[in-house]
Every structure is written in structure tokens, then in C-alpha cells.
């Protein structure tokens, strides 16, 4: 298990910014960062489960920041990632309202964070709600939208995977699905009002 090669930061960042599948970069981040983050969380009132949840949240925020060019390798990935995970956990502790004292510590710690990342640490509940909304979309719609907007596949490639008559039918289905999802989001006031901040836009 110890023979996987370690990718340098620059390669990890390049993979995350590209259209390529991010899986290998994510694996590398697990290997290099999970222990540090899990230690921090467990030493600060967290459980193993908290550590896993927060790590996934931090990964999502980190990749989105890389893709939006908010992190260009000014510091090491480790330093930056740790800051995101730490802020995510402090936010969670604050939400859980462990104590007034912890809140004060949180505010102090937040002020001291050199990188302006607080904007990227969104309420986990809202993001989870958005994810649940998309989850409730039909399977076919999810497949088409993910293939097109996440995997960046061409319509002809999507056609090969799904049983439709021709490319135009797939396109029409894509329009219909995206519009349907947009309506599901728009009709949820809480999501609609916070969509920009949830998506870090």
C-alpha cells in the first residue's frame, strides 16, 4: 500500500483545474491530509465520524476554490487545506453551540486566518439541502445532467450510454431536466435566496 507515488502540489492543482476526472488527486489529498485533519478534529471535541464529514466538506470547498482560481499554490496545499478544514470544523462547533467560550475562540481564530476563506465555508445544511434536492431529480435526468455538466461528455457520447433515438432527443431531454431542476430550486425560497453563496459564486 505504500508504493503509490506522491504527486507534487503543482500536479494535483493542475489535475483539479482540468476537465480530467479528479479521483486520483482526491486520493492523494486523502493520503497526505486526512491524518492531520482527523487529528485536529479529534483533539478538538470531534469524533471519527466528524473527522470524515469535515474532511469531505473541506475537500469540496478546496476543489471549488482551486477551480475558481482562489488558490494558486501561494502556500502549500497542506497549509491551505488545513486552514479550510479547521475553519469548517470551527464553524460546525459554533453551530453546535458547544459554549460561549468556544464561540469567542472561534471569532478570534477566524479573524486571525490569513487567507480569506470564510466566504467559502458555507453552511453545511444548506449545501446538503441542495444536494438532496438534486438527488430527488429522476435518475435519467441526473445521468444526463451529470454527464453533460460534470463529466463534460459530448451529446454523442451521452447518446451511446442512454437509449434515445438521436442526439436532438438527448438535447431536448437535457433542456427539460435542467429547467425542471431550476424550478425545484427556485421554488425553495431558502435555497433560491442562498444559492449564490452555497455555490461560492
Amino acid at each position, binding site marked *: 500500500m505504500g508504493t503509490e507515488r506522491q504527486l507534487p502540489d503543482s500536479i494535483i492543482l493542475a489535475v483539479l483545474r482540468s476537465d480530467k476526472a*479528479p479521483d486520483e488527486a482526491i486520493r492523494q489529498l486523502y493520503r497526505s491530509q486526512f491524518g492531520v485533519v482527523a487529528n485536529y478534529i479529534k483533539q478538538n471535541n470531534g469524533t471519527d465520524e466528524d473527522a470524515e464529514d469535515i474532511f469531505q466538506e473541506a475537500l469540496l470547498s478546496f476543489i471549488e476554490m482551486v477551480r475558481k482560481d482562489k488558490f494558486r499554490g501561494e502556500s502549500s496545499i497542506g497549509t491551505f487545506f488545513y486552514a479550510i478544514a479547521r475553519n469548517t470544523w470551527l464553524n460546525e462547533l459554533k453551530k453546535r453551540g458547544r459554549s460561549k467560550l468556544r464561540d469567542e475562540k472561534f471569532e478570534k481564530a477566524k479573524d486571525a486566518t490569513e487567507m480569506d476563506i470564510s466566504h467559502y465555508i458555507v453552511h453545511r445544511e444548506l449545501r446538503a439541502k*441542495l444536494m438532496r434536492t438534486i438527488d430527488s431529480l429522476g435518475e435519467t435526468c441526473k445521468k444526463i445532467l451529470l454527464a453533460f455538466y460534470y463529466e463534460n461528455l459530448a451529446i454523442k457520447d451521452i447518446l451511446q450510454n442512454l437509449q434515445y433515438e438521436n442526439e436532438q432527443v438527448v438535447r431536448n431531454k437535457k433542456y427539460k431536466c435542467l429547467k425542471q431542476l431550476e424550478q425545484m430550486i427556485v421554488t425553495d425560497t431558502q435555497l433560491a435566496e442562498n444559492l449564490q453563496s452555497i*455555490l461560492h459564486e
Partner: protein
Amino acid sequence: MNENFTNSDILIQYLDGELEGEQLLAIREKIATDKNLAAELESLRLTRTAVATYGLKKTIGSVHTEMMKELANQTPAPVISMRNLLKYGLRVAAVLLLVAGSAAVFQYFTATPEKLFNDNFEAYQLTETRGNANSNLLETAYKNGRMQDVMDAFKQLTVPQPQDYFLQANAALRLRNAPAAIASLQMLQKINAGNNAHYYEDDIEYYLGLAYLDNNQPAMTLPIFERIHADKNHPYHKKISPWLMQKLRRLADQQAVSR
């Protein structure tokens, strides 16, 4: 424009870069003059981003499952059977109860700062997983338990970072060089105070208390551990037991009397 398409369809086509020529110009003009259309375009754009975020979250979730297995295999946690634990635990507990009372009394009166340090010092665990190739020399040496190398690497640093001070202090404690540990931890406190920063704030407090103990200064440890003991939210609160405080108070009193 194709009559069969609704405005929404055309907006999505525009968003996906499928329009060109006159169609493209026409929709741009419409968007520029129609606020509702512009708002719908923005809403669709955000929905598209939401789909990408959803996809990324799914990918992270599936890699997470895979990686938890891999990491667990690297550092197998000791498996303790609850049945065995109860079986042997109850037997042992009975014996322990018998000797605990006398042991406690013995411990109380024979406690020394050095013993308290030895009983309570656990080096800060940086990580349990394999080292990152990009970690600096000091961090790598620390992860690998090469404490003298940590000390040497620290000396080579022209501008040590907070983590460097903290790891060097822990390495010094492991090497039983309490003065060096105290100096580094105090320096880190000064850096924090000077920059209104909070690097390792809680950790510094705890390890500084231990460093004073190892340096035979229980009176210096006492106020630090009193604070941690009183603060239920302090990450090291659980490490400072009432029993430890009792012994520490006795040692601090002894030292005050002897001076």
C-alpha cells in the same frame, strides 16, 4: 430562432455555447433588455453549477469510501472484543480496586515533577498516515520520530514558521531538553500575541505546562493546568484530572516552602 424552442430552451442553448450567428446576437439583445430573461439565465447558470457541485460531491463520496479502507489497512486499529473485555475486565477490576487505594496514597506522596511529566507527556501526533512528499525536512523528521533531526533542521531555518517552533518544542520535550521546549513555546506565544494569531494556542498551553514540569518548575505549571482544568471546552481538559491537580498543587506548595 426555432419556433419549437421555448425561451428557457434557448437560454440553455446559449449557456451551453450551442448558439451562433444571428441566433446568438438575438438572444444577447433579448437578455440585455429583458430583466426577467436575464434573471432566468442567471438562475439556470447557478443550477448548472449546482449539478457540477453535486457530481463532485458524489465523486468525493465514492473515493472517501475507498480511501477509508486503504487508510484503515495502513494503520489497523486494535480490535478489542467487548465480550473479552468484560470477561477479563471484571476480574482485573476487582484486583485493581484492592490495590488502587494504597497505590494512590503511595503515588501522592512520592510524586515528583519528573514523574508527573513522564506520566502525562504524549508527544503531539502530527499525523498517522504516510508522509507527504512535499512536507519539509523538519516535518518529515518529526513524523518519522527522528527528534534530533528535527532539532537540527530547526537550527537551519532562517524564518521558522509557527509549526516549526511547535514541532521543535515537542522534539525538545521528547529529548528531555525542557529549556529548549520552553523557549520555543514562549516564542510561539509571542508570535501569536504580536500578530493577533492563534496558532496551536491550546496546544502551546498544555505542552508549556508539561515543559515546566520537566524543568522542575511545578509552580509555573500549576496556573496553566488550573486554567485548562477549569475550562471544560479546552481540548486538553480531559488530560488534566483532579488527581493530577492534587499532586501538582502538593508539588508547587512543596517548592514554595523549600524556597
